């Protein structure tokens, strides 16, 4: 098997995923094009040599439809020889795009792959691509379908996390993200989104609320009590986990991931790819795995996939210096830490999606980059990146510096 190296990675800042968000005016394809341009220009990449462009996109419809990476390649001015494909594994799509690209390189099919993801949630709302999973009774029923927030509240109830626990985690996420921004930890990877004249549209994560405290969060009403109680989903949760008498609704906008717009790209290559690029690798994709998990808990896949990955690699918790787990909901991270007894100072050390937002298809590639930067800054070696996924799945990747 050929080694797979990471040569560079970039991301856009994350714009608030609403009509008044700064990136709302930027079409999905242009967000994707921005990161393709950046990896090319920063690395002097001859795009004729790009074997594939793989991007995650969860709702690839309307202006994100019809194979958005190939469309973005046109807008970015890539060689017509560079092909593109779009994939979805819901929230882990960006990381799965990287893993997919890594697999092609490892197999020897490709030398240079640009992998990443894009989601303009302000332009294309959640669920806009439809789907049998939640719409078709023949699937919805056996899948124990619930809105993810109800599953997050089920996790909190089952594993005993109180409203204070999840709020405290959210406050810390905001504090860490603000600290990282203030100290320039993201400077190397975040590229400003500029207009056609070179004027800056957005250069900072727009969703953050630095200084958020427990008191501010305490005033927020639980977001998922209504669907849970009125929509029948609490009964679904209880029938899947009947030791629970009633759901404790603890999640709200302040301790759940933000809805945002953004894109990311990771420049992957073999050793040969590196000589074509004339660049030194920054990291190596050591291993990755996917798994299906309890569909009602839905968001505990990271626990299962981490166990699978350790079993396959023979690695253990002590081999991992830093963990990066997408902050879909606070309870997801708390459960992961509880399951493996991971201290909080080794996970999501620069904050995460609760503070900065979760542009679905792009997030996996973004947090892979974030943790690689942090390994370099702390001069550590190995990190595990993982995301929880709709319908009950998990994706994880172990990355190490070279």
């Amino acid at each position: 098997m050929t080694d797979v190296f990471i040569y560079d990675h970039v991301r856009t800042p994350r714009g608030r995923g609403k009509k008044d968000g700064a990136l709302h005016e930027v079409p999905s394809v242009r967000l994707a094009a921005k990161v393709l341009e950046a990896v090319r220009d920063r690395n002097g990449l001859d795009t004729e040599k790009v074997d594939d462009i793989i991007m995650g996109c969860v709702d690839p419809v309307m202006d994100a439809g019809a194979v958005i990476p190939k469309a973005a390649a046109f807008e970015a001015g890539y060689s017509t020889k560079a092909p593109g494909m779009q994939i979805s594994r819901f929230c882990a799509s960006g990381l799965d795009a990287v893993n997919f690209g890594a697999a092609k390189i490892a197999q020897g099919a490709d030398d240079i792959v640009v992998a990443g993801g894009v989601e303009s949630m302000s332009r294309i709302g959640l669920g806009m691509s439809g789907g049998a999973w939640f719409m078709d009774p023949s699937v919805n029923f056996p899948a124990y379908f619930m809105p993810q927030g109800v599953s997050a509240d089920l996790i909190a109830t089952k594993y005993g996390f109180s409203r204070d626990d999840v709020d405290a985690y959210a406050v810390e996420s905001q504090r860490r993200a603000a600290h990282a921004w203030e100290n320039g930890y993201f400077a190397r990877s975040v590229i400003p989104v500029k207009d056609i004249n070179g004027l800056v549209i957005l250069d900072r994560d727009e969703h953050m609320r630095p200084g958020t405290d427990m008191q501010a969060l305490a005033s927020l009403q639980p977001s998922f009590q209504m669907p849970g109680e009125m929509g029948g989903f609490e009964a679904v949760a209880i029938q899947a986990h009947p030791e629970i008498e009633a759901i404790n609704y603890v999640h709200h906008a302040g301790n759940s991931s933000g809805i945002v717009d953004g894109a990311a790209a990771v420049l992957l290559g073999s050793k040969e790819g590196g000589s074509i690029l004339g660049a030194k690798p920054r990291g190596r994709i050591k291993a990755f795995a996917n798994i299906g998990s309890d569909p009602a808990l839905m968001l505990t896949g990271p626990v299962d996939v981490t166990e699978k990955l350790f079993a396959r690699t023979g690695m253990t918790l002590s081999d991992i210096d830093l963990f990066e787990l997408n902050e879909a909901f606070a309870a997801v991270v708390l459960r992961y830490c509880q399951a493996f007894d991971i201290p909080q100072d080794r996970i999501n050390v620069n904050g995460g999606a609760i503070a900065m937002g979760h542009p679905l298809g792009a997030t996996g590639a973004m947090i892979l980059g974030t943790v690689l930067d942090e390994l370099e800054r702390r001069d550590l070696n190995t990190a595990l990146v993982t995301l929880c996924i709709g319908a009950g799945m998990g994706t994880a990747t172990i990355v190490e510096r070279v």
Partner: protein
Amino acid sequence: MSAYKNFSIETDADGIALVTWDMPDKSMNVFTTEVMDELDRIIDQVVADAAIKGVVITSGKSSFSGGADLSMIQASFDLLRQAQAEDPATAVQKLFDAAGRMTWLFRKLETCGKPWVAAINGTCMGGAFEMSLACHGRVASSDKALKIALPEVKVGIFPGAGGTQRVPRLANAQDALQMMTTGQSLTGARAKAMGLVHQVVEPDQLIPAAKQMIRDGLKPVQPWDEKGFKAPGGGIWTPAAAQLWPAAPAILRRETAGNYPGALAILKCVYEGLQVPFETGLRIEQRYFTHVLQTTEAFSMIRSLFVSMQELGKGARRPAGQPKVEFRKVAVVGAGFMGASIAYVTAAAGIPVVLVDRDQQAADKGRTHSESLVKAAQQKGRTTEEEGRALLERITATADYSALADADLVIEAVFEDRTVKKEVTEKIEAVLKEDAIFASNTSTLPITGLAGNSKRPDQFIGIHFFSPVEKMMLVEVILGKETGDRALATALDYVATIRKTPIVVNDTRGFYVNRCVFRYIAEAYDMLIEGVPAAMIENAAKMAGMPVGPLSLNDEVAVDLSYKIFKASIADLGPESVDPRHMALVAGLVEKEGRLGRKAGKGFYDYPPKPAKKKLWPGLKDLYPQKEPEEVDVGELKQRILVTIALEAARTMEEGIVTDPREADVGSILGFGFAPYTGGTLSYIDGMGAKAFVALCETLAAKYGPHFQPTPLLKDMAAKGETFYGRFAPQGRKAA
């Protein structure tokens, strides 16, 4: 002169044919094969006769129609079995074709080229409403007794003659799903608001209004056959649908725990059907209908919840040769909660009642109960002022026993104490006319013993009501050793008059229903003692199809009552008759914790003031070392709950307490809500087969104790491959 047995046709000067459906020898019109054949020919005649411009179809009965004759559906089960025996390869195809008969007949009606209007003069159910939906116009009478419903889901099937396709093409999908998955009844006004009928008119205007629709040029084309048709709300891929469909299965799961294939099939038919052309939708519905017809649930539910319930209601167990009893007066002695409620349901059925207690004040208090029930019914619009007043006037509260002298039936509902009952029985018989029947509403004391207090034990019987009497549809009629046929006939006529369903059981401690209920609660005690989390016990029971969890039920009937029953049982039958661990649990709750049940605001649950919800008492966790949820097999909890009850029902058959499987099944569903999708306790066993049931019992006995040991009868049935309905063929009917 008519060419049809079930229909008459009269064509007026405008060329409008009035087709009147009026089946001879039936009080209500139903769809039979013959009716379908005739309707088929009528459609041909209408098409062929140039003089006929359009059709109004109505009923000659007070109701429009009750829908398909479910014995026809039962016949399709026989057809399937026969076809499977002959040629399994083509059996399902035959069932599919039979299942489509009504579907394509109604499709023929709506595409025949001439306009049809249904003039719905009275209650219109199931297949009959599906036929109405195939008509181009629908006019309903404003008669307040008129009900429209697609109730098929209640007997384990679903509207399979176009209902799942036409309703959501007329009404919005949410209303359509609600109507069909609950089987709820609609008033004419509600049906009109939903878009299911075009007009609601005074009864005498019904036919003129229906004819007028045709004279006004009603198009013989359904909306869904017009170009560019869109379902209300726009179909499946719309923002409104994105709100509805993810939640619809969740709500169904909340209401049914996924135990009813017919209900889930409705969702699938609507979801898939709205994405395709109408006729394709009909075919999808036909496929699901064929599939659901093959389920054990459909077979068992139709048998118990329709056929058997109807047969028992019509007096299947009534002894022959006894003249029907008209009740001129019924006396209820004992004006406590049960007695007062019995007086109410009796008066509500139009029978004059004397309510007797030891003093006027106590008797009056019993009558007050009826007053509050009448007031509540009036507030909900279920009764008029006048009806309510008339009902109350039929109840006379008195302390004077002589008032009951001329009663046809006396129901004794005094305190459950042999001495008290003896005294009261003697006082009653001192004044009661010779030929009157004496009934005791005891729930715990054997009838034969109580009959010993009577001078005429052949006229002595048990009539066991369930609480709350106004709501519970079941009555257990208990035969003492010497109870005669006239007493039984009188009791059954009384139960029929108050519109409840009787089961007749022989005398034993706990009779039938309570014996089963004790097993239900006892199994929950076992689980608690094993350390199964209490919420898991309650949820597993509900997931198994029980309406109320066993611990919640125990709180309702009172934990201290369980304690008293245990003590009585030990006193009467010896200490081995009660599991000492159960005794310790109940004694601890009652004596140490004062947790007497709901009435005390605390039992297995805590009952905070409303609107807060009841919550399991956290102290339950400390009573026994708790298991981790992952260690507990929920599927097995569900099985234990159903099996322990079904096994007790089988014992009552073996002991001859219950003699007719229909009564065991119907009694279990109406008496304590035993998982209706199974068709009842014995259908549950028949449904899986005695052999599988015995094997399951043995597995459970090895793990959870000898109370799961299969009985000799069950082992014999397993060896012979018998069913309860085969071995104990219901009286007066061939084996099903």
